[in-house]
């Protein structure tokens, strides 16, 4: 697999962000424990995505993008690790991670700008998931920077409703030479 080049600072994301891939027990209140910890310790969360993990109903994976400016990463990880329901924490530096995000956007269109909207979609690699006489809905699953770009491009249009999922990430697998 060819590693993607690290594109440097990503717009709309804190200057020094880190991705924590946190495996948690799938128990009631786990998300509240994590959110509460971040709030009371003054750590900033940039985005957060949660879903059951690895086909095992017992665990969920939480991908948290943290602002490493708001507190030392060591503190954030150390405090998070003290939550009894947190099983493992992988700290992914952006350059060591594969990050993806999904963006969904819907906007009103008419004959004057429909083509322009479809052009934006084509240029950014977004797919059109719904289209009718008065509106277009597009989706982009891609790198956070690609989503940033699409979001920026859509600023040209009025009446855009847009939702991003927050990123999910996994460590980039490094191929090691075999002896």
């Amino acid at each position: 697999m060819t590693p993607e080049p690290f594109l440097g600072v990503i717009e709309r994301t804190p200057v020094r962000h880190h991705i924590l891939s946190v495996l948690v027990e799938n128990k009631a209140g786990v998300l509240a424990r994590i959110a509460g910890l971040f709030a009371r310790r003054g750590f900033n969360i940039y985005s957060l995505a949660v879903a059951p993990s690895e086909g095992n109903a017992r665990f969920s994976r939480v991908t948290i993008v943290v602002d490493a400016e708001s507190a030392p990463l060591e503190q954030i990880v150390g405090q998070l690790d003290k939550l009894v329901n947190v099983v493992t924490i992988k700290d992914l530096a952006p350059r060591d991670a594969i990050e993806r995000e999904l963006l969904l956007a819907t906007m009103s269109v008419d004959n004057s700008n429909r083509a322009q909207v479809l052009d934006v979609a084509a240029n950014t690699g977004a797919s059109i998931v719904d289209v009718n006489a008065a509106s277009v809905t597009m989706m982009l699953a891609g790198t956070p920077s690609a989503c940033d770009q699409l979001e920026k491009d859509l600023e040209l249009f009025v009446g855009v409703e847009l939702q991003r999922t927050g990123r999910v990430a996994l460590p980039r697998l490094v191929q090691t030479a075999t002896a």
Partner: protein
Amino acid sequence: MQLTGAQALIKSLEQEGVDTIFGLPGGAILPVYDPILDSSIRHILVRHEQGAGHMAEGYALATGKAGVAMVTSGPGATNIVTPIANAHMDSTPLVIITGQVATASIGSDAFQECDITGITMGITKHNFLIQSAHEIPRAVAAAFYLATSGRPGPVLIDLPKDVSQSTMEWWYPESIEELDLPGYHPEVAVDERAVARAVEIICRSERPVLYVGGGTLKSRAHQDLLAFAERTKMPVVTTLMARGAFPDSHEQHLGMPGMHGMYSAVAAIQKSDLLISLGARFDDRVTGQVSTFAANAKIIHVDIDKAEFNKVRRADVSLQTNVASALQALDAANATPQNLDVWWKEIRTWQERYPLVYDEPTTEGPLRPQHVIEAIAKKAAPGTIVSAGVGQHQMWASQFWEFEEPGTWVNSGGAGTMGFGVPAAIGAKVGRPDRTVWCIDGDGCFQMTAQELVTARAEGIPIKVAILNNAYLGMVRQWQEMFYEERYSEVYLSADLPDYVKWAEAMGCVGLRATNLQEMHDVIDQANLINDVPVVIDFRTDSSEKVFPMVAAGASNDDIMVHPLLRGEDQ
């Protein structure tokens, strides 16, 4: 064997070796109070749920075991929030059981409903909301394991009424694996490379200080500490949470560091070239201004909780393990500093020049609070346990009482909870009935939780309470005098209202009063002769007394203020 959830809870507590529950019943916890009648566990009926929590803390601090408290839902649960927060700050092992409304009613704003697991999320080590009676044994076993292992702390179990009324087939977890805690690994192997780096730093050190915190007591490392300190000849300071971890009478002990610490302890830290922190957390009351705290010292930080590393002060070596294991590893590696004769000579100069002092007591009074504490200590049986509230009296108790062994100092450190003293003393006495227990209290603190003396009398728990009655919220008064140009705002309480002697008597205790020196000695002797009921003594002390030494909040430890009697030309 079929049991109700309530029976399973009590049986689980019995399995964990619980001998005492401090509590107060109410609607949602009612089912659990029935099987208590058939249990060997002693239940102590408190007068306010806050009392139950602080008693459980006093019990835990005096015995080293987890303290157990049980209360009902809603206000019963919220009344115990302060002790939970207090225990969380001081890493005290507690298991708190709260009743909850029936599962079907949760979220409906039912009578006496409150989200106590939500409220206590940030002030417990962990908490459980039980969903079925079958889970009770696992939750109880996990609660005790969590509360007492790793960095100890309070764990809360919220038990809905229908769960305690439903039935289950009795079982009990037999191993840690059965507790279902995949994310909890309290045991950490000693990192030998970190030990090697620590040894290297120690061997180069010429001015080391052992900075001993509460974690030393929690890991029962006092013997290891004594052995290590005596072998290396290093000076020792014990924080407010660690009083008793190293004998005060030991010639290597410099006393307590911090805002009201001994001059020599503060100065030694400031001038040290190495601080070995043993289960301490660089609290602001110890460091003062962080940037000037032990500015030239290397730091070896030993803690079981890795989140403490580099939180306040960057460590040169972080050693994540319990204090006992760390000291054993350092001893095994023969970590020995340079010759410390010059260092000790300097320290002895500070000790001689700046001892603990107070103004000469007068025969007719008012009494000197420091003198009262010394007089009680002088006449106290060896091994006497001392509890305190929070404020001036607490600082004087820590300064003027000589602590010789672990578990003899019961106080509220991190949270600074006024009113802690009386209920904590009761809990300590229940845990250690063989020991004399004195509560050194302030008049402000006493008024917050004094009702628990009714509990003490009713349950036959003969503690002794010394109120250092200066008619003020003394510590606040001291700050207003020193930092607010003597503008005293809302700190006057009156020495005579309430009448503490009558109040004590109304609660079934012996009430005594001392206003002059002769009475002071007499009432202490009298109190020492009474061993069947609680005794309360109203000592009338001088309102203008202030706690010294003092480092003003946020100031540098270098700017420590000593007692006026010691202020020479060069101060």
